[in-house]
């Protein structure tokens, strides 16, 4: 069924963007007034809303988050997005769900954050089948629900579902890499509570199930990472429950507060039950 969905979606028409929010100098514009790709109204969200947020009141996420996704994505297999919590928001975000409204599997990922994540800074990449909104729905520890979204024109259409090189993808599945980013101006410190930034990369084709086996018309079953748990020592930084809308070779760049444990451990599992675990000693501050 999902195959038909995906293909039907390829014939999508160009959606026009709504007129931009206007304003005059007399009022202080909200920070998002100049965003070029505001979310657009669509049918898909009506069904998704309940699944994602239940009957919670949806507050304007722009107040606590800045959300960046391109106006137009040239490689629809790899559409980057980033979420950055405003430093003065005074909220602790406990959960975040990323939704691509019009994808065959709209809920791309759900993150549950540990306290060490502090203000949330998270970047990842999703696949796009058709032009669609991407939204982040954040639940705070105090029970409020915020939503923020963008509309992305993905130019690659449907040619997005496949590994560039299937055999390589299968033979390297489960490899991981953790990159640490250091602010060159920052004083090197091991102090607990220091904010650090890393990028976790996991090799996995995240099969969508739209690929066809050689010489047949049978589909390969979907196979994607459905669970990722990232810990700093014994403290959970985040747990992700994912779908195949996350791009091949999933990547998560995020910030966290150091607890001095000195190593990040990653556990990942895919829908076939394959498990991958890696521990990365941290060099930052040494």
């Amino acid at each position, binding site marked *: 069924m999902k195959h038909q969905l995906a293909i039907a979606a390829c*014939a999508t028409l160009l959606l026009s963007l709504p007129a931009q929010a206007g304003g005059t100098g007399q009022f202080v514009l909200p920070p998002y007034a100049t965003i070029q790709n505001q979310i657009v109204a669509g049918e898909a969200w009506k069904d998704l809303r309940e699944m994602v947020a239940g009957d919670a009141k949806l507050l304007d996420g722009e107040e606590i988050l800045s959300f960046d996704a391109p106006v137009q994505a040239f490689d629809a297999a*790899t559409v980057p997005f980033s979420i950055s919590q405003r430093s003065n928001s005074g909220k602790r975000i406990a959960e975040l769900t990323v939704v691509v409204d019009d994808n065959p599997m709209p809920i791309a990922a759900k993150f549950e954050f540990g306290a060490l994540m502090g203000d949330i800074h998270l970047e990842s990449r999703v696949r796009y089948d058709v032009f669609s909104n991407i939204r982040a729905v954040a639940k705070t520890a105090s029970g409020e629900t915020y939503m923020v979204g963008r509309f992305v024109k993905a*130019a690659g*259409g449907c040619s997005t579902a*496949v590994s560039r090189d299937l055999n390589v993808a299968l033979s390297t599945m489960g490899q991981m890499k953790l990159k640490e980013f250091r602010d060159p101006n920052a004083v090197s410190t091991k102090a607990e509570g220091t904010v650090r930034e890393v990028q976790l990369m996991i090799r996995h084709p995240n099969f969508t199930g739209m690929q066809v086996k050689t010489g*047949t018309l049978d589909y390969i079953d979907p196979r994607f990472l459905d669970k990722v748990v990232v810990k700093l020592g014994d403290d959970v930084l985040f747990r992700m429950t994912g779908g195949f809308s996350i791009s091949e070779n999933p990547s998560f760049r995020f910030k966290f507060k150091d607890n001095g444990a000195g190593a990040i451990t990653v556990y990942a599992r895919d829908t076939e039950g394959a498990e991958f675990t890696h521990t990365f000693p941290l060099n930052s501050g040494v």
Partner: protein
Amino acid sequence: MFELLVTLCLSTVCAERVLPAAMPTDKAQCEASMNARSTGWVKAHEGYRVKGQRCVAIETLDDRAAKTTETSPGHFVHEGLVEPVGPKNAGDIANTGFIVGDKAVAVIDAGSSRKVAEALYLAVRSKTQLPIRYLLLTHMHPDHTLGAEVFKEAGAEIVGSAALQQAMASRAEAYTANLKRLLGDDAFHGTKIVLSDRGVADSETIDLGQRELELRAHPTAHTNNDLTIYDKTSSTVWMGDLVFLTHTPALDGSIVGWIKLLSELRKNGAKHMVPGHGPGRAAYPDGAKPTLGYLTSLAQQTRKAIKAGESLNTALKHIGQDLRGDWKEFDEFNPRNATSAYVELEWE
């Protein structure tokens, strides 16, 4: 010799298609076989129906035949347009052609649609009655492959890299849907994707009769299924999309692999090449320099951005922007290439 033209309708869209036979036919043979051929075709193409049919002399079909240049005796090149695929050009944007030996013909690449492939087929038939024994596909991309069925009907064996069949099978639905949307119902009319019959794992020589072609499959570069064809007689290598001229290169494989391949182009005695896009003839190996230069700079800039800790979203906004030069379709292809390069090189 006579060709069979059949008016075929899919819903309300009708067009007169060329239905090749495995061997050229005279008027009587064409007319005797036309019912069987048109019914057979309709059986294999769901939704189509025959509205009319006629056999016409090949000489009267000149204006439907693709324009080709005989760059060397028996070596014909058709230059695709350097523009986006659309209803007007029916996807005639890739360089294609054919090579004629003493006993047989090999066609190289098939265009984006049946319409484009029929034109190439008529160009072959206007030059020679020899059997079309091979259709050689340089790689999977739809602008090079979607017209392939025309040559299968003409009796050709479809040969590509050993990795081609799987690559095309897994993208068949997406390519079909995409091209249909880009070309529209008229230009896409009659087009049906077919897979290669056989793959070349490393290299193989085929003989067209006093004319040998050396086929070589390559490690992942432009795609994971690139194949080059070396015609020793004309001293020409068909590079497929390993070489772009005028049209911005498109990266859909490995930037590291592609740079390596072009840096090490074998001195095999060839003097000319046919690039996948742009002018139909360039010097071998120097014709690869613009592509190699673009890719090398793109890789350098991408590595620099990654090293500086730039996220993909940030890096995409500037990588390669200063490489525009005279490349066409740059704004469409450069950001896509930058994405591909980034997600490959961030693993280094």
